[in-house]
C-alpha cells in the first residue's frame, strides 16, 4: 500500500479537515492484518455495489465496505 511521505507536511495537510471516523480509517488501513485480509477479499469475485466481506469480517474490524469495482 502506498504511504504518504512522512517528511512532507503538505501530504498530511488535508487531514486537518478530518473528523473522528476519517482518522479511524487512516489507522485501520495501517493495520497489516487488515490490509492482508482486504487483499484476499479484493481477489474474490464480487458483484458491483454489494457488501464486501462476511458479517464476521465486519464484526472483527468494525467496518464493512461496498464493492466499488
Amino acid at each position, binding site marked *: 500500500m502506498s*504511504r504518504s511521505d512522512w517528511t512532507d507536511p503538505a501530504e498530511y495537510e488535508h487531514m486537518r479537515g478530518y473528523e473522528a471516523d476519517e482518522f479511524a480509517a487512516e489507522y485501520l488501513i495501517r*493495520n497489516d492484518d487488515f490490509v492482508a485480509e482486504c487483499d484476499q477479499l479484493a481477489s474474490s469475485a464480487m458483484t458491483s455495489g454489494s457488501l464486501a466481506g462476511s458479517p464476521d469480517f465486519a464484526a472483527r474490524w468494525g467496518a464493512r465496505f461496498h464493492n466499488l469495482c
Partner: protein
Amino acid sequence: MWPSASEKHPILVDTPDSAHGIDAIVLPLDENFETRLDAARRFWRALNGRPPGVLYGALPQQTKLRHILNLRAHDARRAKAAYRRIAEELLSRDPIAARDWRDHHLRHKVRAILRRADRLVAGGYRDLLLYPQSRNRKPDCRYFGKG
C-alpha cells in the same frame, strides 16, 4: 441519499419505495442514541431548509493535530526512519546531535507517540468510530493480546 445544499444524508430503508414521504424517525435507546439523534436532527433541519449547525462530536483542532502527528510518526517508522530522525522532523525545530540522543527528552516522547499510534492501529480506531460517546467509556485493554 437526500442531497441538501450542504451535505448528503445517507438513508437506509426497508423497502425501496419508502424513501419518499418519511414522516417519522424511530431511534433505538442504545449506546449510539446520541449519534443517531444528531443525524436525525441534521436531516430534519435539511428538510426544513435550515443550516445543519455544528456537527455533534466535531474534533477539536488540537486533537486533529495529535492524530496527524501519530500517523506521521507511524509512517516514519514504517519507512525505517530512525527515532532521532523522527524527533528532529516532527518534534524539534533544531537538529539533534547523535551524541545527545541517548538522554534526550524527546526520545521518550517519540516512543510515547508510537505507542499511542500502535494502540490506535491495533484496534483503538474502533473507539474513534463511535466518537464522541466513546469518551465516556472506561478505557480497557480488549484490543491487546489478540493473536
